[in-house]
């Protein structure tokens, strides 16, 4: 599944656009604990979190993620959006909770890394 398809199908808000909207998403990851994410999330994933501060951008960039999805209608700070744009990190948003957006993505075929082929 492509990032652009995920954005369109789930009507995600784009806070900071992707430089590679056609990238194939490898898997999804859900966590608000940054040390967990830095250790366990993989390349080209989408990361669901309700953390909105600027450190999420450094984590996503370090892990070569495809994008961050801020859940529950939360909005990233201006500082976060500015940093994301300058680093080319894709930041998206949804009104859905972490559970619901993850369920939607899972139902449309995206899996976690441990269940990915």
């Amino acid at each position, binding site marked *: 599944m492509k990032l652009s398809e995920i954005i369109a199908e789930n009507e995600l808000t784009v806070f900071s656009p992707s430089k590679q909207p056609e990238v194939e998403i490898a898997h999804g990851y859900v966590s*608000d604990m940054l040390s967990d994410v830095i250790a366990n999330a993989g*390349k080209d994933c989408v990361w669901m979190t309700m953390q909105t501060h600027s*450190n999420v*951008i*450094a984590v996503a960039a370090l892990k070569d993620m495809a994008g961050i999805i801020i859940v529950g209608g939360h909005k990233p700070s201006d*500082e976060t959006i500015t940093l994301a744009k300058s680093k080319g990190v894709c930041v998206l948003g949804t009104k859905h909770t972490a559970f619901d957006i993850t369920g939607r993505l899972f139902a449309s075929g995206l899996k976690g890394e441990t269940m990915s082929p």
Partner: protein
Amino acid sequence: MDGQLIQMEFPVKGGNFGGAGDAASKIKNILKQLGIRYEIIKRVAIASYEAEMNIVAHAAEGTIVVEINPNAVVVAAKDKGPGIPDIDLAMKEGFSTASQQIREMGFGAGMGLPNIKKATDDMTIKTEVGVGTELTFKIFLTDNREETLK
């Protein structure tokens, strides 16, 4: 890189959460430019980020010195900080002395040092309470170990 040694130093400011991750990001980019394998870069990035966050979260200031030799990437994170009174306790997953504010940001889960240990081939901590800590880790470039980290 035959026989060559590359050394770089990055200052890290305590409490500067806005700039946290900058040193790890620079280190990652340099390793990329050197054509180091992605599996190695990934492990260096995890460990460097955690080491940098430890300085930001706990110390007044510090430096991260990276040495890339033909065999390994060696990173030394030195800080002027509170020191670690009990290293065994600090190594325990889940133990943390981080403030509530830091925990709310998603840090301070007591995963930092264990993450560094898991991601690296060698890790040593020298520390003195009230003076500071020097954390050194090494990742071999020739490592072909089974992939256990994602």
